[in-house]
């Protein structure tokens, strides 16, 4: 059994949240630069230049990438031989969230009740945490600061299995195009296919943590990923809805077994301020 104190993990989570609030994934920056090279729409080019300038200015000025500094989402994979001492995992994650909100400072964006009063909790807790047990003696934490705009335009549906790959591609493209500029394109698409009613959205969210622009190991899914990106960019609303050919930067699919009657599909949209990171201890 490998013992690690909760303080060590809390510090790592705190640092990850603080860092990603000001530093965009360098692969996303690169993809945006490449998009600027090929984009011909004048307004879209202007917006891309501003986004790239923001990636440079944010760490320099210590002003977060976006005023919606996000809600914290954590996928924790805990090794069977990993033992946490001190605080529980949710306690230490929420302590890190609270510290980052205060120290950076980040925007307090969480209300206590979703419907009545909607009083702001003031510290961004609770983080949304998913725990999984795996082999080994390590802990792997996938941490995101997820903005509300792209989250609001995300969608899922229980499709009929008869619709197949083409049906899924149509469903995804229609949904993303209907979202228009509200999720802040250029986007990254996380798509979950299979599992069940609650499982597909979790796969979609987790797909956003796949290394940016990675190709799916299964050729059939890889072709779906590139077809979705290509089709949306042909028909799409472009950077911030200004037109042009850059609505989607990358599409990541994750799939899982499902019931014989079902074909669950969920699409989690991610804005260009992609704030995802991985901590392994």
């Amino acid at each position, binding site marked *: 059994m490998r013992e690690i104190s909760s303080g060590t993990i809390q510090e790592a989570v705190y640092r990850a949240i603080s860092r990603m609030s000001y530093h965009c994934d360098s692969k996303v920056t690169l993809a945006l630069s490449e998009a600027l090279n090929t984009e011909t729409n004048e307004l879209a080019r202007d917006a891309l230049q*501003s986004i790239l300038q*923001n990636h440079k200015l944010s760490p320099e*000025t210590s002003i977060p*990438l976006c*005023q919606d500094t996000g809600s914290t989402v954590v996928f924790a994979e805990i090794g069977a031989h990993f033992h946490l001492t001190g605080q529980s995992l949710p306690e230490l994650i929420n302590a890190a969230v609270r510290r980052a909100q205060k120290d950076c*400072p980040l*925007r307090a964006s969480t209300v206590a009740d979703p419907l009545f009063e909607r009083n702001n909790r003031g510290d961004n807790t609770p983080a949304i945490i998913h725990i999984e047990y795996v082999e080994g003696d390590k802990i792997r934490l996938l941490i995101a600061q997820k903005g509300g705009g792209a989250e609001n335009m995300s969608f899922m549906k229980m499709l009929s299995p008869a619709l197949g790959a083409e049906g899924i591609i149509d469903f995804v493209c229609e949904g993303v195009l209907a979202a228009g500029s509200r999720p802040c394109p250029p986007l990254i698409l996380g798509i979950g296919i299979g599992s069940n009613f609650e499982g597909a959205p979790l796969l979609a969210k987790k797909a956003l943590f796949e290394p940016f622009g990675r190709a799916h190991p299964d050729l059939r899914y890889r072709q779906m990923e590139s077809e979705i990106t290509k089709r949306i960019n042909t028909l799409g609303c472009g950077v911030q809805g*200004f037109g042009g050919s850059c609505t989607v930067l990358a599409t990541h699919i994750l799939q899982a077994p499902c019931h014989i009657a079902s074909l669950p599909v969920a699409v989690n949209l991610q804005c260009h*301020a992609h704030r995802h990171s991985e901590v392994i201890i």
Partner: protein
Amino acid sequence: MKDFRISLPLSSAEISYLHPNDKVLLSGTVYTARDEAHKRMIAMLKEGVQLPFELSETAIFYCGPSPAAAGMICGAIGPTTSSRMDPFTPELLKAGLRVMIGKGERSPETEQEIKAAGALYLIAIGGISAVLSQSIVSCETFLWESLGAEAVFKMELKDFPCYVGIV
């Protein structure tokens, strides 16, 4: 794409000179308002209570800033999705509002209302807070501080970059 440098308050003539997709560098005093602040402003107007600022002379910026770090003028500044404010917009236009700043499309009905009122909807780019913050001269909580990021903030803008969405 034409570039214009304009200052609030805007006259009808100045607004009529603008076209969709023009780039605008906006200066002047604006007030932020999101969902909850809109609800409260509409409630005040319905009760016949005067708003503490003149709607016709300013702009409503759909924005919930992040807190300013010590020694900074402001935190992260940027637009939120405008369509959430569509249900409140006709009332505010009636009360004199002429300029709105946000991101994304408006409903077809709201678009008509904005055009009919001779008003102006400006689009700011989402997710470029460090860039936009360079155009903030001052930022202070103005109303309903307990709402946190959803409070009304009074901001002084200098050459704040945005684009004409609806005019």
